[in-house]
C-alpha cells in the first residue's frame, strides 16, 4: 500500500517561497522523521502534507488519493495533525479537548457511535494522561498540553498522523514514551510523519528520514543510510559519530563541534 507521496510541492506566503519544489515520500505504516535546521520550512510542509493547506503548485497523494479532493470530514477521518503550542482561552476540560477529535465522526443529526467514550479513554491512556481527564486544559504544562493534543489526534483514528515537534516540551521519559507510541502506531499501519529537531531521537526511532533545508529536500530515505556524518556536517555544521546502542541495536549519534 502506498503511503504519502508529495510531488513538486511549492508554497509561497507573502512573496517568499517557503517550500520549494519538494518531492518526498513517506512509506505506508512507517515512522518518518522530518528534520532540518530552524526556518527550513518544516511546519509549512507538514501542513500541506496533512492537507490543511493547499500548495500553490504540486500534488500530494495519500494512499493514491488526493486528500484535498475529499470532503472535509472524510479528510479529517483520514489525516490528523498535531501542531506546536496549542492554547486556548476557552475553559475546556482535558476530556472535552480529546473528545473534539471525534468531531469528524459525528454529524449534527447523529450522535457519535457507542465506542466514542472508549476511544477517548484509550487515547488518553495511550499518552499517559488518563488521570488528568477532569482538569482544565489551560492549567496544564506545555508538555502535558502537547500530549493531550496528541490524544485528540488519536481520537480522530487517522490513517495518516502528522506531528510538528511533538517532543518539544517533554522531559526525557515522556519523549521516549511518545516516540515509542508513534512507533507502535506505525507498526499498526498508521503512516506517521513527525518533524523532530532532535536528530538523536530521529536516528533512534524513525524508520525513514527527510532532510529539509531552506525549503528544499536535501536528502531522504531510510534513516541509517541517509543520516550520515557527511550529511549532518553539511546541513548542521557539526561533527557526528554514528554508534549503535548495544541494548537496542538502534543507532545513536554522538555530536561534537566541527574540528
Amino acid at each position, binding site marked *: 500500500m502506498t503511503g504519502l507521496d508529495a510531488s513538486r510541492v511549492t508554497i509561497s506566503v507573502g512573496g517568499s517561497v517557503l517550500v520549494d519544489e519538494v518531492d518526498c515520500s513517506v512509506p505506508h505504516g512507517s515512522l518518518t522523521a522530518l528534520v532540518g535546521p530552524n526556518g527550513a520550512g518544516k511546519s509549512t510542509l507538514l501542513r500541506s502534507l496533512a492537507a*490543511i493547506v493547499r500548495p500553490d503548485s504540486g500534488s500530494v497523494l495519500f494512499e493514491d488519493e488526493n486528500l484535498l479532493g475529499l470532503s*472535509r470530514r472524510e479528510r*479529517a477521518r483520514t489525516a490528523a495533525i498535531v501542531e506546536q503550542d496549542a492554547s486556548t482561552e476557552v*475553559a475546556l476540560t482535558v476530556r472535552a479537548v480529546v473528545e473534539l477529535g471525534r468531531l469528524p465522526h459525528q454529524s449534527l443529526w447523529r450522535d457519535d457511535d457507542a465506542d466514542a467514550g472508549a476511544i477517548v479513554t484509550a487515547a488518553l491512556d495511550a499518552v499517559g494522561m488518563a488521570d488528568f481527564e477532569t482538569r482544565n486544559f489551560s492549567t496544564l504544562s506545555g508538555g502535558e498540553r502537547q500530549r493531550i493534543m496528541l490524544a485528540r489526534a488519536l481520537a480522530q483514528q487517522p490513517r495518516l498522523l502528522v506531528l510538528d515537534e511533538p517532543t518539544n516540551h517533554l522531559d526525557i521519559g515522556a519523549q521516549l514514551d511518545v516516540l515509542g507510541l508513534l512507533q507502535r502506531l506505525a507498526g499498526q499501519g498508521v503512516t506517521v510523519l513527525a518533524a523532530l529537531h532532535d536528530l538523536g531521537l530521529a536516528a533512534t526511532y524513525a524508520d525513514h528520514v527527510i532532510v529539509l533545508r531552506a525549503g528544499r529536500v536535501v536528502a531522504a530515505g531510510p534513516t541509517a543510510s541517509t543520516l550520515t556524518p557527511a550529511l549532518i556536517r553539511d546541513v548542521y555544521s557539526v561533527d557526528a559519530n554514528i554508534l549503535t546502542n548495544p541494548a537496542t541495536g538502534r543507532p545513536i549519534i554522538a555530536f561534537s563541534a566541527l574540528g
Partner: protein
Amino acid sequence: MRSSLTRAVVLGVGLGVALVASIVVAVTIGPADIQFGEVWATIGSHLGLGDSPLSVLRDGIVWELRLPRVLTAAAVGAGLAISGAVMQAITRNPLADPYLLGLSSGASLGAVAVLLLGAAVLLPFAAFMGSLLALALTLILASSLGVITPTRTVLAGLAVSSLASAITSLVIFWTVTGDSYREILGWLLGSLAGARWQAVAITFAAILIAGIPIMLTGRLLDAFAFGDVSAASLGVNVSATRWGLLVASALLTGAMVSVSGAIGFVGLILPHAVRLVVGAGHRVLLPLAALSGAIFLVWADTAARTVFDPRELPVGIVTALIGAPVFAFLLARKRQLT
C-alpha cells in the same frame, strides 16, 4: 463522562422548570393589585378556558401589558445569551457581547431615526435593518483588510459601531426636543416597556429561526477553541461555519434589539456565569445559557417595573446595576474564566 452529561441534563430540566415558574409568578406581579388566581383565570379566559373575573381594563393590564412583556423578556434574555456565547466563541474573546459587530449601534441608529421622524410604528423594522446594515459594513470592512480573522472582525465592528454611534448622537443632538430625548434615552438604555404581542411574535420567531439552529451547532463552536487551523483539521468548514453563525447571531440579536433596544450585560455575563457551573462545552452551554438568560431578564424587568412603582426604569439600568459588579467579580476570578 456520563455524569457530567447527566448533570447538565438535570440542570437543564431544573432551569426549564424555573423559567416556567418565573413566568407564572412574574405575570402576577405589578403596580396594579391583582390576585394570583385572577391573573391566571383571566389568561385562561383568552385561551378559551372559562370567563375572566376581571374588568376589561384589568384584564387588559394582564393580557396586553404584563403577559407579552414577560414573554418578550424571556425570549430576549435567551436570545442575547445565545448570541453572546456565540460571539465569544467565534472571536475567541471572553469580553465579546452580542453587540460586538456594530449590531446594536446600527439598530440604535435605525430606531432613533424613526423615533425622530415620528414613525414609531416602523421601529422594529428600522432597527432590524439598521443592525443588518451595520453587520454588512463590518464584514465588508473586515474582508477589505485581507483574510477575515477574528481580530480584524472585532476591529471592523468597533469602527462601524463608533461611526453609527456618532451619527446617532449627531441626529439626536440636532433634532431632539426636550420630550423625545427621554424616549430615545429609554431605547438606548434598553427597555421592555413597549413589548406588546407583536414583540412576542418577533422575538419568538427569532429564537425559532435563528436561536435553535445555533444551539444545534454546539460541537462546531467547541472546535473553534484552538483556532481556525485546528478547527479545519477536525473537518470543520471554517469559513462557512463562521459566516453562518455570524449571520444567525446577527438575525437573532437584530430582532431582539429591534424590540427592546440594546439591553446590556445579559449577553456578556450569562455565558460566563453558566460556564463557571458547567464548563465551556457549547452543546451544554448554549441551551443552559439561554434558559438562564431568560430567567434573569424576566426578573430584571419585573424589578424595573415594580421597584419604583408607579414609576418605571428602563430594564437596561437594572441589568447594568447587577451586571457591572458581577462582571467585576468574574474578572477578579479570571483564573477560572480561562
